[in-house]
């Protein structure tokens, strides 16, 4: 902007800024966290306030297998990421695919759980337990399902060779999102199946 002889050491320095997709993803994650917080608070607040049964301890069984699936999928997604950065296509597809399967198993197990709960007479309008349980767990499940779509998208792009190794960002962002969904699950699990039951 000013005349060239005023060029200081500063203007020779490289001008580095953070990457836009990463900052954007962090924004999204913060928003989602704020959204979940209110549902979690509502769940905590209403524990034990149902006027009639069924109560959590009558019905809820800790979904251990589903949790193991979901949490280990965070590991496999990291493996996939590493393979991608090493430009190892086969390994990437393998681990990415396993991640998808683990997530899908989680959703399937949630569906089975919900079916059981509904058969045992717990609906959203049964009591406060139902009113708070389905929205919280359902909100999380919705996020898993969105994640599955995104994972599938990347998978398809990869097997049709539309995902060159230079395009590491979309893959990385989806794996960040996936880690976030997992982290939320730890909170939901703790609140619903541990604090809520005991």
């Amino acid at each position: 902007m000013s005349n060239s002889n005023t060029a200081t050491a500063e203007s020779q320095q490289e001008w580095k800024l953070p990457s836009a997709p990463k900052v954007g993803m962090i924004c999204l994650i913060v928003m989602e966290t704020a959204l979940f917080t209110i549902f979690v608070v509502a769940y905590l607040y209403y524990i034990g306030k149902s006027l009639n049964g069924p109560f959590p301890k009558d019905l809820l069984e800790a979904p251990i297998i589903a949790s193991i699936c979901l949490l280990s999928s965070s590991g496999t997604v990291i493996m996939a990421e590493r393979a991608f950065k090493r430009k190892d296509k086969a390994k990437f597809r393998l681990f990415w695919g396993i991640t998808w399967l683990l997530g899908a198993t989680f959703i399937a197990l949630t569906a089975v759980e919900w079916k059981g709960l509904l058969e045992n007479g717990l609906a959203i309008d049964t009591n406060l337990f139902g009113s708070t349980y389905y929205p919280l767990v359902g909100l999380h499940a919705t996020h898993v399902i969105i994640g599955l779509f995104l994972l599938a998208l990347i998978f398809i792009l990869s097997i049709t060779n539309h995902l060159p190794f230079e395009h590491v960002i979309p893959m990385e962002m989806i794996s960040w999102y996936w880690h976030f969904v997992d982290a939320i699950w730890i909170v939901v699990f703790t609140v619903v199946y541990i604090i809520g039951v005991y």
Partner: protein
Amino acid sequence: METPDSIQLEAVKRSKGLEWLMTVDHKRLGVMYICSGLFFFVVAGIMASLIRIQLAVPQNDFLPPDTFNRMFTMHGTSMVFLVGMPIIAGMANFLVPLMVGTRDMALPRLNAFGFWIFLFGGCLLYYSYIGGPGLYGAGSAPDVGWFAYAPLTSKAFSRGHTVDYWALSLILTGIGSLATAANIIVTVFCLRCKGMTMFRLPLFVWMMLVTAFLMVLALPPLSAAQIMLLLDRFLGAGFFDTQEGGSAVIWQHFFWIFGHPEVYILIMPGFAVASEVIPVFSRKPIFGYPVMVAASIMITFISLGVWAHHMFTVGMTSVANVFFATSTLLIAIPTGIKIFNWLGTMWGGKIRFATPMLFCMGFLFQFLASGLTGVMLAIVPFDWQLSDSYFVVAHFHYVLVGGLLFTIFAAIYYWYPKVTGRMLSEKIGKMHFWIFVLGFNMTFGVQHILGILGMPRRIYTYDTDRGWDLWNMISSIGVIFQGIAILLFIYNILSSLRKGKEAGPDPWDAWTLEWATSSPPPSYNFAKLPEVKSRRPLWDEKHPDDPDWRHE
């Protein structure tokens, strides 16, 4: 085109319209946001006038009671979500990329999406006027107040779908605002031009950034609460249903966890405008730049922890009361610091009393008044007396009108030349200012007295023996002045579009980058991306003998 025949011209014109509809240019979206905001401002202003006509004299029956309820609900909801928020989004959209020296927002498509979903949400809210009780019975709208307290919003008390429209439309406009917020954050962090370090950002950008953070943290809780409300209403959940053991008070908590930060989301952009206009018209750099930044960040943090000062009369424990009263009083400190810094900027400056500066000075006085009544309301026993009275109405109108709206006017007078290439008329601008100041203080000033005399807010009418008649009459007469001022303003905007003086790139002799490009800026903003070395890049350029960066 050498020989344009009429058909071709027609096609060009049509595609111009289409260009606006399809645009992802931050400047056009900014203008579209501001125009929609001003449109809703006129609509919500008409509703406000109807409310004041109803209250002008005792035992009036100008409006039916249920219409009255709809009027104040739609007025409040519109002013906050369809006027304040979009105009803020519009200003940020137009100015932030220019000020940080880049070509567009970081996520232009998301930006366009945000605008359209906001507009759709706004239309949906107004659609409730025809989508009334039951299905499609005409003549209704939400009537539960802008904070929609439970259990008023339950199926039992609000039949039909008006509350559903309220919740759905605000979820949509909320998504729009979140898109804008994310865009601002990413743009500021990732697209600054060379040399534009965080501590060289114009204060406007800093405050918009801080506002965007508040949006990211505060808007999702509102959406969460509204989703719960919709679940209650459609699927029979019991979040806010006391018959099922649910709690009406938790709605209040959720609402104000959003609602208090929201009031700062609305005022911080006002601060942002004042922080640009006051230095330029005082011919001095802003006093205490780092302190201003620190104060903004402090306000953000504290404002997340004070929400229950809206709930002192709910009957919380005294521990909670003390906590929320103290945190509320704390927020007065950074706010006060800001006022001192603006005054410090003016101190000893060569002040030019142009219209933007006048509006900012009006803002200083009126915002100070609202801050003082705010501090009064934060004193719990005082609040027990005056909560839900006209005193509160006066307090928040002093902030929202005296603070935000005045700075919006300042912003429009200041940046209109940049947007359109033409100046607004200073003569009409000054008339607008003085008539509006008079009308505004008449309308809302006396409402402090009405509150102290015990007039509750939201009452439909009142008896003659309360001593409120005169004050209500004065308050309503003030609206006439405000209306005249607004008409002058609209006339000024429209007529200056054609007849205004040519502005040139830098009519105010300002310092920030938006003035470095032509007015209106080309679609790519800068032919060559700028490079800056100080907080006042244009000063450096105009004063090569004594540039700022030598002193930094």
